[in-house]
Structures are given as C-alpha cells and as structure tokens.
C-alpha cells in the first residue's frame, strides 16, 4: 500500500480535534501538527477569512502577554511556508487602505497588502475595473487623498479604470476574476497589459482583491516584477478574494503537514463524559459522523457558546473553559479565538486568535507554553 492508501483507512480517532477553521483554528492545528500530533480540523467553512484579509492589529493589546512574540513568529513562519507570507511585526504600525478610502492601522499583513502604506511623494494609482460595481476607484482615491492629508503624508492618489474581458453571460465579479487569474494565463496577460501603462506612472497600484483564490507569492510578486510597480489588494465586500486565498494556501500547507480536514459540517454536539471530552458528533448527511480524540480545541467563533451548554463560561490560565463555579468543563478541552472575545473588544481579534490558537495548540500537544489572560 502507498502512504496515501494507508491514510484512507486510518481510524476516526485523533490526537486532537480542532473545531473551527478561522485564524485561531488554523494556527492551533498547525502548532499541534508541528509537534507531531495527528490532527483533525472540523469546520463549516473558511471562517472569518471570507470577510477580510487576515490583517493583524496589536494596538491596544498588552504587549507583555507571555508567548505573544513566539506566537507571532510561528504565524509568520506558517504563512511564509504557505506562500502568502505576512510582513511586519509586533513593534510595527502601518496604515493600510480600505474600500472606504480610510486607513486601517495594522501591525502584520499579507505581503499583498503590506505595501499599501502611504509614503511621502509616492504616486499611487487606485485602479477600478469596468463593470465591477462594488468598487469605485474615484471614491476610494478621493477619500485616500483626504485621509493621507490627515496623516500628513505626501502621497498622491489618482483614480484609473481598466477594462477586462468578462465571461459571456456573466457580470463582472471579484470571484470570477480571481478564478480566472488562477486558471487562465491569457487573463493574467490581459490584466498585466491593462495595468502596464498605469504602472509606468505610479510606484504603487491599489486594486480590488482579484489576484487569484489560490495564487501565491510567486504569481503575485511575478506580476509586480513584470509591472515594475508595487501592488496592494483591498478586500472587497464579502466574499473577499484575498481572504479566501489566504485560507486556501493555509489549508494546503496544513494538509501537507498531515492535518485532516472535515469541512462543511457543523458540530452537533461535544461528547463530554466524566469531565473528559471524548469527541464530537458532526452533522453529516444521513447520520452523524463521530470523531474521537485525546483532546479538543474549540475555535468556533464568537457565537458558539451553545456548544458548551449555553451557560456562561470563561477560561482558566491554560485556556481550558470553566463553568460559573470555576470548575473545568472538561480537562482535555481548550478554547481559542473569538469564542473568548468579550463583546466590547472586537479590536485585536486576529492577534488574539493567533496568540490563543498557538497557545491552545501547544498546550494540547503537551508543550510548556505559557498563556495567561489579561
């Protein structure tokens, strides 16, 4: 038997089940798999990735939190290996444009957004695409001029529009362009040709996120090199192509590292007996699929408290959920990401997701990582 066939007949018992495929779930699965655990990642879909681009903000965070540096380093390395490397670091702050023509403060961002910082005397072209109605380059450019002025930056923004061929019988959409960027060399050439005259007069091009759902550093930096101009992609209204790309690249990386994915099925129930979590029941067609494991990380987002029986809960110093009396709900159960987030502190969500995801993954793998909240 080849290795692939061996994997197919492996049991439904894992060292670790990670529930949720947002940034927290992905990070914890990667951390645990890196420590040699056999990991299952169960999710309904690509989590919050479809909404944005995964930018990380650490302002307003307690920089002294244990393991923060370590977690960020791990995440940067993970994204680098996945081919969508993050730039920046804990000590950095950059101003990255948004589709509202404002700037968002960011400490780490994927390489295809990191160049969006307004620089003195930079000539920036904001490029719209004819027919793509949810992105307006004139609006974005006009607002960026205003906001760059507020920041005291000397960069200038001009609006440009390009025309791209559209598949017959369809309307222009970021998903369509993203798909064709991946599959169709002629489309990539067409895009490059359309951008070339603009690139000749600009040092940075800001464009709506369309540069592929699966593409990596090679393809996007290749385009930058051909144009001789930096690119910054903005996530549009959901679904966000850059966010989906990030997810696809990370998923591919995790699969290579041995993580097994069970995607598309919500968790019906956590099976908790005698203060141990035995596994999960997945709501698969016809009958529930039961996966069992030695430990479990819940990274199911801010609205998934019901999985723990709807009573309010917090976590103890090693990210294990406790009930109202402070008793562990299950000794082998961890929580990470936005499920921990208090409703009023939405900021720093991705940074907390990376930190708690990394810590939970390491703790589940028995590594002596330190994590204490607040």
């Amino acid at each position, binding site marked *: 038997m080849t290795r692939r066939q061996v994997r197919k007949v492996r049991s439904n018992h894992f060292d670790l089940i990670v529930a949720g495929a947002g940034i927290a779930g992905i990070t914890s699965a990667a951390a645990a798999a890196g420590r040699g655990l056999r990991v299952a990642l169960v999710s309904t879909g690509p989590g919050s990735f479809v909404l944005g681009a995964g930018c990380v903000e650490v302002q307003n965070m307690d920089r002294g939190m244990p393991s923060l540096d370590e977690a960020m380093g791990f995440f940067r390395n993970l994204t680098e290996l996945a081919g969508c490397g993050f730039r920046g670091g804990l000590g950095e702050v950059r101003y990255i444009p948004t589709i509202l023509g404002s700037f968002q403060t960011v400490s780490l961002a994927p390489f295809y957004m990191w160049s969006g910082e307004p620089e003195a005397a930079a000539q920036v072209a904001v490029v719209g695409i004819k027919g793509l109605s949810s992105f307006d380059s004139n609006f974005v450019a006009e607002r960026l001029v205003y906001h760059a002025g507020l920041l005291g930056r000397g960069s200038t923004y001009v609006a440009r529009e390009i025309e791209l061929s559209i598949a017959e019988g369809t309307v222009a959409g970021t998903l369509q362009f993203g798909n064709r960027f991946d599959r169709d060399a002629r489309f990539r050439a067409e895009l490059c040709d359309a951008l070339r005259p603009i690139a000749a007069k600009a040092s940075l091009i800001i464009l709506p996120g369309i540069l592929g759902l699966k593409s990596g550093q090679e393809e996007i930096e290749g385009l930058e090199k051909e144009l001789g101009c930096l690119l910054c992609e903005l996530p549009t209204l*959901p679904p966000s192509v850059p966010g989906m790309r990030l997810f696809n690249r990370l998923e591919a990386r995790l699969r290579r590292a041995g993580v097994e994915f069970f995607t598309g099925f919500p968790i019906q129930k956590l099976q908790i007996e005698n203060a141990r979590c035995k596994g999960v029941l997945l709501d698969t067609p016809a009958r529930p699929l039961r996966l069992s494991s030695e430990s479990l990380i819940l990274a199911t987002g801010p609205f998934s408290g019901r999985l723990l029986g709807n009573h309010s809960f917090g976590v103890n110093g090693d990210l294990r959920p406790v009930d109202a009396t402070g008793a562990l709900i299950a000794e082998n159960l961890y929580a990470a990401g936005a499920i921990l987030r208090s409703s009023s502190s*939405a900021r720093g969500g991705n940074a907390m997701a990376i930190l708690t995801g990394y810590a939970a993954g390491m703790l589940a793998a028995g590594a002596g990582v330190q994590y204490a909240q607040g």
Partner: protein
Amino acid sequence: MEKTQVVIIGGGATGAGILWDLSLRGIPAILLEQRDLANGATGRCHGLLHSGGRYVVKDAHAAQECVAENKIIKHIAPHCVHDTGGLFVQCRQDDPAFFEQWYESCIKIGLPSDRLSADEALGMEPNLPTDILGAFTCPDAHVDVFQLTLSNIESAVARGAQFKTYCEVKAIDIAGGKVKGVRYRDTLTGDEGYIGCEMVINAAGGWAEKVAELAGVEVPLRCDKGTLLILNHRLSSRVINRCRKPGDADILVPAGPVCILGTSSITVPGPEGLTVSQEEIQHLIDLGTELVPALANARVLRIFSGVRPLYVPKSASGAGGREISRGFALLDHEALNNVKGFISIVGGKLTTYRMMAQATVNLVAEKLGVNVPCTTHEVLLRQAHDEAALRKAHKLLPLPVVEKADKRLGPNLAKIVSAIEARPELAEVICECELVTRAELEYVLGTETSLPAKTIADIGRRTRLGFGPCQGTFCGYKAMLAGFQTHRWNAAEASAQFERYLDERWKGQSSINQGKQVEQLYLSHDLFGVAYNFHDKKAGEEGA
C-alpha cells in the same frame, strides 16, 4: 419670498393626505417635513389597515371609522395594500364572554366577520397554538406605510403641490392675530427660508405640541411609545389578533417577506430619543409566543419604536395610553385661541389618515371660501401601470424583480425599463433581499422622480433597500457608491452618509441580544467599524 395659500407641517400619512386633498380641491400648498416622509409614527407602526375589530368593543365610533376607511383605502390604493385578511383568535386562557361580546359588536356596526372552529382556523393558520378555541375572520390587511405616504405626495405633486423634506419649521409668523407665514431651516444645507401663507396646518404627530408652541397655543398630547419587532419570516398568512381587550403584543402583521409583532404601550416624555429595554423585548416575545408559538425560534431582524401622539383634553388627562380614544381631534385655533389661520390635527391612527385629512381640508376650504367637495375617497392614488413597459420589463429582469418593481413603481416602471434598455448594466440587483435594481436606485436618487431621496435611509423608504436580513450591510455600501457615481454626493458626503446610515441600522439591531441577527450585526461592525473607527467612537454604547 416663496408664497402659497396653505403650509402643512409634518410629512406623515396625515400631512401627505392633506396635501393630496388640497391639491384635488385646487388649493395651493407646501408641505414641510423636518426629516424624511413617513419618518415619525407613520413609518414606525405595524402597517396594519385596521378592520375595526381592534376597537369594536371599547370604542364603536372609532371602529366604524375603520370599517369605512378600510374599504376606501383598499379601493384607492390597491398598490399599497396587501389584502391578507385577519383573524381574531380565541385563546384558551382568555375570557370567553369577551369573544361573544366582540362578535355581537361587529354585527352591530356592520363589520363583516365569520365564526371559525378551531380546526378551520388551524387549517388556515397552522402556526396558531393547537389548543385555541376558535377564531373570527375580519378584513384586516397590511398596508405599506411608506408607499401610501409617498403615493399621496407624488399624486399631489403631479397636481402642482410642493413639499420640502429635511426642513424644520423654526417660527410661525403671526401678526395681528393672523398667520402670515412660516420660517424654516433646511437641516442638510443649513439654508433658511420663509414661506408666506394664509393658513398653517399642524400635522406634526408626536411633534404637534412643539409646533403649536411656535404659534403660541397649547395642544396637550400624551406620547405613548409602542415597540415592535420585525421577524425574518412570515409566520402567518393573515393578520393575527388576540381576541381580548387590547393589550401588549397581541397583533402579528405579515408584511411582505417578514412579519411584525407589537406593540407595547408606555408613556414617554416626547417623540425623540426612544429606547427599548431588554425586559420590554422579552415581554413582547413572551406574549407573542402565546399567540404564535413558532415565534420563539424566529430571527428578530430589528426592533423599533414609535409614539402614538394621543390627544388629551385637560379633562381626561388621568387615563392610561390604551384608554385614550384612538379618535382624532381637529383643533381650530381661531375659535379656540384667537389665532386666525392655524389648525392642528392630532390623534387618530394610520387607518383613518384620509378621513382626518378630509375633515381638516373641509375646515380649510370653508375658511378659504373654496366650495369644492372632497374626492379623496374615490380618486385612485396612482394611475394604472403601463402594460407595454411591464412586458418589456419581463424581458429584461427576472420575474420576482419585476413583480416587486411593478408594485413599488407603478407607472414609473416605464422609466426604469427605458433606463435599462439604454444601459443594460442597470439591471444589476443591488439589494438582494428586496430585489432593488441599480436602475431603481438611480431613479430615486435622480432628478426625474418627484420624490428624490436625500439620504441612504431615504432610499430605503422609497425602495425598501436595506430592509431585509442584511440590514444594509452589503447594499448600503453599494447605495452609497451609487449616490457618489450619480453625483448626488461627493466622496466626503457619501462617506458621511454611509456612516450615519450604518449607525442608524446598528441602533435598530443593538438591543437584539441573541440569535442569527447578532452575527449579522457583528459582521457589519467588523466590515465597516474598523474603517470608521466606530469601535473607538462608540465604545461604551454597545450592548452585550
């Protein structure tokens, strides 16, 4: 200086009805509204076209008015009415003596009603509790309050009347005991203006007391807050009433793709700054669940409150909100306070708006010596739609889009059709919940319509954009861009518009503390909150 004969203050259903009635009798008039049309109590009610059943036991006179107006509105404004019919449900826990009293009262005033067995009622409305004792039918219906108000204005404008939105009246000019004009301020531009006139009609609803003060007269009002919940499904096909003495949360109205449950009844100091407590919401849901158990699992899209401006003559000021008559009062301040040319129309309810307008304009006509009778009970509010345009629309747009657009636009559908023919990209559906095309969006933002939208929320009141489950998260952004692209707003204005719009939308959802709509709200926060720094600006305001 602008001049007209009559100035109406207040752009709710009543003011709009008065403008239309005046225009039919050939009396020049200008209506001033401090915000947008149908923004006050008109736009914050159930949208129930009462059959009269609600009031039949307690107030036979008000019920009779409803019986008559219900028929008339269905006749003159079929495009605004969804004639669902209604039921008065006999719940096991309620007083059986009231059921019989209710039915007999209906017969007495000629309100058509049939008696249904429990099985028959459940066959018609399977979401009712299985242990009901029976039900009565009635001709209740849902009326689109925005359409109704806008249609009155649009028809009046076609006959030469004028209106100004976002114009707040700052002063009523009175000299020698006689009205001379009004001074107003455009709240969007800050410009001030003066309109010379012979008469001023105060139809300001919850704000009527304040407006009367400008003329130096007292109009005692009780502001009675009613809170309503919008649920994401139609849980019934008909209007469901609980057959008992009117109380909280005993009416469920199916309204297009959603349904509306209400109301509460709480006396508040004024029509502004209304808040809703968690207890109030839970109270409504608990009571609503007694009437329609499926409601317990429905998704609450939005919570809103309006005030019933109840007229309280000094002799009756001890009564509670539900005890005060739903009848209206027409106050001739010439007779009452020696202010010639000033009239207030207060109290009443949406269903009788036309009757209130008729009574008001009868008095106005008498004072101005105009001898033309009222015809608003027979003249249709909208011309028939253009069959040729409808046929073309079917070729250009998907069927459900055409149906919605036809209902909203009527004869103006032709304008959308020709716009799409000229620019096919206008067929794009911008609001996917309410199926609003870019063509319709550009139409209400443009100069061709007599009811131009000035804000993103105005677009909603004209097209229902943003009224569905996403609450404007996606379509609100696109609507902002459309305003920018059509040069209605520059980029800074568009951005400010969108921020205000989101703030307003978020407020209506912020008191929802559970379920899918909270996720929707957080999505909206996470998408746009960062860009607008909402989290910094509004920290501390957010609920759990």
